């Protein structure tokens, strides 16, 4: 190895090592914002499903207006464009603080199909949520299954 190439190699090594260290300690702001956005979005699903679920399980009385409002929110949430929520490099193998598995970015078509299935189930729930407890209960099941279909493959197991 010539001395010049040795210097170049050393320089590259330093660059790579410091780059990796930088990546580990400073989250890219776009990545951080995407993770915050999608986790907030999931919280909103959870909040509205909790209203319907509490009625479905008999923990609170069925209220047609409240049920219709929550189902309307779910339907709206499920159709929002999330493209900026999922920047490259924001998967659980690249950064801390997320359970979004890299498979999401490898199987874009399947993820979109599952998102469409959720939107469909949420629209069906929205159509009946205000019409009665039994109708709402029956339509909530497929929404839960749509949540699970995605979490089955694309959400990292937690440490529980």
């Amino acid at each position, binding site marked *: 190895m010539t001395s010049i190439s040795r210097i170049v190699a050393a320089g590259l090594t330093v660059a790579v090592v410091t780059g990796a260290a930088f990546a580990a300690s400073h989250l890219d702001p776009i990545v951080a914002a995407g993770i915050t956005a999608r*986790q907030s979005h999931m*919280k909103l699903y959870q909040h509205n499903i909790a209203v319907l679920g509490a009625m*479905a399980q008999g923990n609170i009385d069925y209220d047609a207006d409240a049920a219709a409002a929550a189902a309307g929110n779910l339907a709206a949430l499920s159709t929002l464009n999330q493209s900026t929520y999922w920047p490259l490099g924001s998967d659980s193998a690249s950064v801390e603080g997320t*359970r979004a598995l890299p498979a999401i970015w490898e199987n874009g078509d399947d993820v979109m199909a599952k998102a469409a299935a959720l939107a469909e189930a949420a629209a069906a729930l929205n159509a009946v949520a205000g019409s009665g407890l039994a109708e709402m209960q029956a339509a909530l099941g497929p929404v*839960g299954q749509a949540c*699970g279909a995605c979490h089955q493959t694309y959400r990292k197991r937690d440490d529980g």
Partner: protein
Amino acid sequence: MLKRLRQLNRLILAGLVLAALGLWLTRPQPLAPDALDGLAGDPLAGAAVFAAAGCASCHMAPGVVRGDDPVLAGGRRFASPFGTFIAPNISSDPEAGIGGWSDIDLASAIMRGVSPTGEHLYPAFPYNAYLLAEMQDVANLIAYLRSLPADATPSQPHEVGFPFNIRLALGGWKLLFGTRGWTLDGALGPQERRGRYLVEALGHCAECHTPRNRLGGLERGLWLAGAPNPAGEGRIPNITPGGLDWSEAQIVAYLQTGFTPDFDSAGGEMVDVIANMRRLPEQDLAAIAAYLKLVPPVVTAAAEPSAGN
């Protein structure tokens, strides 16, 4: 010199006797040929056994969502410290599946882990739980399996390296770690007994929720106390009362809908489990919940608060 030879002979003889004894003790032991005699299988009742036993979760093709008549084409991969097991085709196809097996062949595979050719099966197949099943339930299950669609996809060989690829050794595993009876013993009421049957026998919950020793035997002293995920990251949760503080009604709701008490949704393997569980009558789910409340509580270190998506 002659004396030495005689000693050597005696040693060899003793070794052979020991080896023969070992082979005899660890031999594949199928059910008695008449074990199913007098039992007629009811496919309708078998559908409930099939759901409770979770057969579809492993034996459907990868990525397939559970429908009413699942195609059990096999092909799902199960990584473990011993290698990767690939679920076989158990559809009714006479060549690729179990269509050509007799009822007693099937029952011996399910309850004894012995193949129709008399080989030990790997305990990735939970015969170690199913051996506690009632013979009538197994007869019903077999009748139901025969009613499901055929699929010609060939089964793939397991990807298991030396020494775990020696099936003969599985007899030793069975001898050491085989289920001898109920883990939760004592005086139980009818609902709790039903729950125990569903959890310990058909549901084989302990296969994932109980930790294993280095040879893959269940640590029965830590029954359902949670375990590392054999396929990689994360843990399978502790579902003893020391780890799960949900009410019985909340456990039933989770098994029916996949929603936790705070309306997060189930993920991972539990999604397939719930696709089976919600097909069971509510009183069966209530029995499971009642049983889980009786399991000795094991307190594990509190998990880190989990990050969201």
